[in-house]
């Protein structure tokens, strides 16, 4: 069961809105598909990001790909633990493996409920 307290994107990210911040991570489906994560290139605090555009990249033992911003806004926090332990994303994608927090998030890309996301990945 994927957490139902958050929304999901077609790019296999999750967003959790809390107060004035949005926390972003990648889903268990993405982390399993990509394999063991060896490096994360995440935006720095204070950087302005644009919905739908690349905000960093992720490297696993099998591939490199972009991390897309699920909304426009300002990066208010980055999960610093991942610099030394990127495997946390594989081990705990919805908790310890969160990537960044966005302040004043707006212009969200298309978001899905957990049920809708389940349906999307089970059909792929």
């Amino acid at each position, binding site marked *: 069961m994927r957490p139902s307290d958050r929304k999901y994107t077609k790019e296999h990210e999750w967003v959790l809105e809390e107060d004035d911040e949005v926390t972003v991570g990648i889903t268990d489906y993405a982390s399993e598909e990509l394999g063991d994560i060896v490096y994360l290139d995440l935006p720095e605090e204070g950087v302005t990001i644009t919905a739908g555009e690349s905000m960093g*990249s992720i490297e696993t*033992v*099998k*591939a490199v790909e972009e991390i897309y911003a699920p909304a426009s806004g300002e990066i208010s926090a980055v999960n610093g633990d991942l610099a030394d332990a990127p495997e946390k994303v594989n081990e705990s994608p919805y908790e310890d493996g969160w990537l960044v927090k966005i302040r004043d998030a707006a212009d969200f890309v298309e978001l899905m409920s957990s049920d809708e996301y389940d349906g999307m990945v089970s059909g792929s």
Partner: protein
Amino acid sequence: MGTVARRLRWWVDTPAPGAVNMQRDRALLQRAESEPDFDPCLRLYAWDPPALSLGFHQDDAEVDAGALAAAGFGLVRRPTGGAAVLHHREITYAVVARLGVEGLGRRVLEIHDAIARALSSSLIELGVDARRGGGGRPDGFACFSAAGGHEITVDGRKLVGSALRRTRHAFLQHGSLLTGPGHEQLPRYLRGERTRSEAGVESLRVRTITLDDLDAKDLDATEWGEAFARRLGEGLRTGVERAHDAEHPIG
């Protein structure tokens, strides 16, 4: 089910410096990303002069740029992940396609599997006893220090190393088929491994195998490219078309 490609195009490109080679691969990926009717393609190429390529996230501070320059070798960063490669005597390939093409798929493992099947069957057809790799991962900075499950080995030694970049709508998977010695000299151009470069060279030598070792030294890019493209085309269930060739053969 994916979209059946109209055709697979392949060609042997002009040997080029590292920066040009990686720019050509990036340009193909960008075209595939932006053009919905992009035909899957296979580009074969060589490096002139030889060059050290770093994985997308590798630290260039580990490279001894002075030693590379003194040897006349280039240095370039790949758009793909993975570890460093000294491209010396090898035939390099790049497969670029839209995600979701029938026979290549869109998931990381689907893409690697489809290409590994074509790699191994084309080499077997040409008399090389190629097998899928063993699920290892590089030990340190060098790509050829271990073979992943999607890579190609002979007698447990790595013959083809490959790496993937996936964008929103497309992918680039490129790799190196070792044709002769040279690649194993990589540790001589790395700072961190310099003090143990002899051991590092020997380690790469015993973990890898080349076409020279396999009495297949006459296999050139055109002959292999023809077989590789045909095997890829079979997987894609589409026809294969040879596109413009370079003026200079590579091998």
